[in-house]
């Protein structure tokens, strides 16, 4: 074994330029793959976390069918006690109840139709980043108080300031007319005008009175901290639900189907590109190894006639490729790791990306993280394809006739 390895090693350096060029192709692709995959995976998890922790949560308990129709009548009965009992069971996660309605929100001068969320003031900041975005005033405090927090853009459009009164008009759970007067106690600023214009929050207790909810609500939101283990948590929550009522537990993928699919769409185009890169490297290896085999026809003829089996020669060629591939893998992963590490400290930005990033709840500057997975997945695939590419030249050797081969120049 040791002898074969030494032979292979020396063979590689008979043509150092060629070997380095081929290794260079691998290093280049590996470096790029490590960096791109680290960036991509980092972006995906950030996208998921930011989107889910902003408002949706990782799991929600809803009435069956609510997810499709979002009708006011599809409620979860006695939602506060339900959230309370879940909170007692799920100590590692955060739980809060919400109700959703639509109302015409009017100030003295203006009216806007907008979604109104009834939230538990005490627990909302466990499942949403919104309470932390309050730019003026404070978040809700009392579950029964006639108070409201709205977005900065909406406050501007309604021409209201803290302390002003707003009138809410909407339809209640039974379709009847629902009305209330609330005091503006807080203004949040998410930086996204559309979001600021589309969400308002009032205390859940007040919401239930105003919209004739009779103690019911629409969502129990569970923040699991991260997406790992959500499936197990989902079945656990399912088993904790009260027997009397038919309820559905949805995971984040069902709640935000776009998220997973946007990632899939992005991934499939990225993988197409990576695939092309890998195949181009494989061609490069194929070319090099074929040349190196053809060059040595004469020499191979001699060793064959001396009694070496074609099988061992084939293994020699594969070993040469494997050494070269390993060199490319290690150096490429090292360079890629360093490149990613540099960006993980200094951040990566691409001109014009801020706009695109904001749309997916991402910051304008990314800090890709190196992990063993992102470090090895790309170079590993390149290595496999490198070996596959060397199969053809190695198999060609099996048909070599010693005498003919020796005559070759």
């Amino acid at each position, binding site marked *: 074994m040791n002898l074969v390895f030494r032979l292979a090693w020396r063979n590689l350096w008979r*043509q150092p*330029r*060629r070997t380095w*060029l*081929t290794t*260079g*192709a691998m290093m*280049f*692709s590996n470096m*790029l793959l490590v960096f791109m995959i680290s960036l991509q995976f980092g972006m995906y998890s950030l996208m998921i976390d930011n989107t889910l922790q902003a408002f949706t949560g990782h799991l929600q308990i809803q009435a069956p069918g609510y997810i499709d*129709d*979002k*009708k*006011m*009548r599809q409620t979860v009965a006695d939602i506060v006690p339900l959230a309370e009992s879940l909170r007692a069971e799920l100590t590692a996660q955060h739980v809060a109840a919400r109700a959703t309605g*639509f*109302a*015409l929100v*009017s100030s*003295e*001068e*203006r*009216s806007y*139709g907008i979604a109104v969320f009834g939230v538990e003031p005490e627990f909302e900041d466990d499942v949403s980043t919104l309470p932390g975005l309050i730019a003026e005033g404070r978040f809700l405090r009392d579950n029964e108080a006639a108070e409201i927090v709205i977005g900065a*853009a909406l406050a*501007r*459009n309604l021409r209201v300031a803290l302390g002003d009164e707003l009138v809410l008009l*909407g*339809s209640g759970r039974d*379709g009847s007319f629902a009305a209330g007067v609330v005091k503006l106690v807080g203004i949040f600023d998410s930086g996204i005008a559309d979001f600021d214009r*589309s969400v308002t929050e009032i205390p859940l207790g007040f919401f239930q009175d105003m919209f004739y909810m009779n103690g019911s609500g629409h969502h129990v939101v569970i923040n699991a901290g991260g997406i790992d283990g959500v499936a197990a948590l989902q079945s656990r929550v399912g088993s904790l639900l009260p027997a009397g009522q038919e309820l559905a537990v949805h995971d984040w993928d069902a709640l935000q*189907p*776009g998220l997973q*699919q*946007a990632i*899939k*769409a992005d991934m*499939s185009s990225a993988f197409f*590109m990576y695939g*092309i*890169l890998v*195949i*181009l490297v494989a*061609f*490069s290896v194929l*070319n*090099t190894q*074929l*040349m190196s085999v*053809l060059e040595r026809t004469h020499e191979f003829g001699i060793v064959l006639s001396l009694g070496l089996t074609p099988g061992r020669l084939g293994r020699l060629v594969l070993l040469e490729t494997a050494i070269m591939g390993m060199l490319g893998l290690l150096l490429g992963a090292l360079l890629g790791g360093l490149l990613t590490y540099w960006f993980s400290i200094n951040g990566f930005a*691409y*001109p*014009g*990306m*801020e*706009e*695109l990033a*904001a*749309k*997916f709840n991402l910051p304008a500057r990314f800090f890709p993280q190196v992990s063993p997975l992102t470090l090895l997945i790309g170079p590993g695939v390149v290595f496999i394809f490198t070996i596959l590419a060397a199969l053809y030249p190695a198999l060609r050797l099996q048909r070599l006739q010693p005498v003919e081969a020796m005559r070759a120049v």
Partner: protein
Amino acid sequence: MHMIAILMRLAWRNLWRNHRRTLIMLMAITLGAWAMIFMTALMRGMVAEMVRGGISALPGHVQVHHPDYRDDPSIANLIPMSDSELSERFAGAGFAAWASRVRVPAVITSEYDSRGVTLLGVDPVSEQGLTFVDDNPVEGRFLESVDDAGVVIGKKLATTLNTQVGKRVVLMSQDPDNEIADRGFRVVGLFEADIKAFEENYVFAGKATAQKMLRITDQVSELFVLGSDHRNVDEVYDKTVELIGDRAEVMRWFDIDTYLGSMLKVMDGFVFVWIIVIFLALSFGLVNTLVMAVFERVREIGLMLALGMRPVYILGQIVVESLLLLAIGLAIGSALSWAAVQPIKDGIDVSIVGDGLDMWGMSNMLYPELLLSDVILANVVVLVLGFLASLSPAWRAAHYEPIEAITKV
């Protein structure tokens, strides 16, 4: 001139001396060229589809608003010029299409539920084919005139509101004096949109009917103009500014929807990066091939030099060989990418990740867009960079010492 012909012949014959190596390299270049152009066509198609969707949603290439409308899209910010004056000015201006509309936030209420929507008071005749609804099958009918008494709503909104064609709904907004303005409408039609959010968001009514409901006369919220090409809107923009003067704000589509605008720019940059990356992956193999070709022919090159061939012709011979190889690969690759686009010209159904594409602002069909400019860009970049890459091995070949080279084994 004569020399070039000889060099061409020499290079051509040299290329096929080792046909296996040339073929492998040719396959790599072909695959690279195909991937460059085909992938670019898909990405271009994706962005074009987003821009198309975006422009039909805005709608138009150039829009006119009250200067405060974009921050505060309410009835208070109407274009400070009467609608009839606008028509007078725009009618004879020779635009491909233009229309004006009332666009205000409103609340729609059925007997079951209510939602916040954007009410569009439109002239169905002048808007035909300009926005996202008219291209799609409509249940019931679309509006027929500016004083049509019905409304057309999205299919999804109809489900949420539990209403259907023939049923009545109430729309509520406010008039310029901040009084509630409401009116009952019969739903006369349902529209479907590629982007599902539009179905929940927009309600179409006749322009005159909407004006009557909002208690305004002969005024509109926005005017939009459609030119012939979304990439070149300056002419339309300048003409619109001329017609409007400084009485209202005139904006181009990419200033209004900055997400779309930067998407287009980022994509232009990305296409270039992609072409370069593929080239770099190819370049290792290309240089390698040339290095080997030179190495094999050291003696023959030495002989040529000894016989008096000038070094520059040796250099030329190698460079021409490289360019020939690239040109053949590029030609086949370009042809293949054209062929690959043909069967999917009518669109690929990508609805499997439809919700995700909704997030990007894309519809469920992807139409590849093969631009001649991209084909030329890819070919030119590869030829120019390939020329540069082949200079180093060619330079070495041209500077051999004749005696040394001839005596080399």
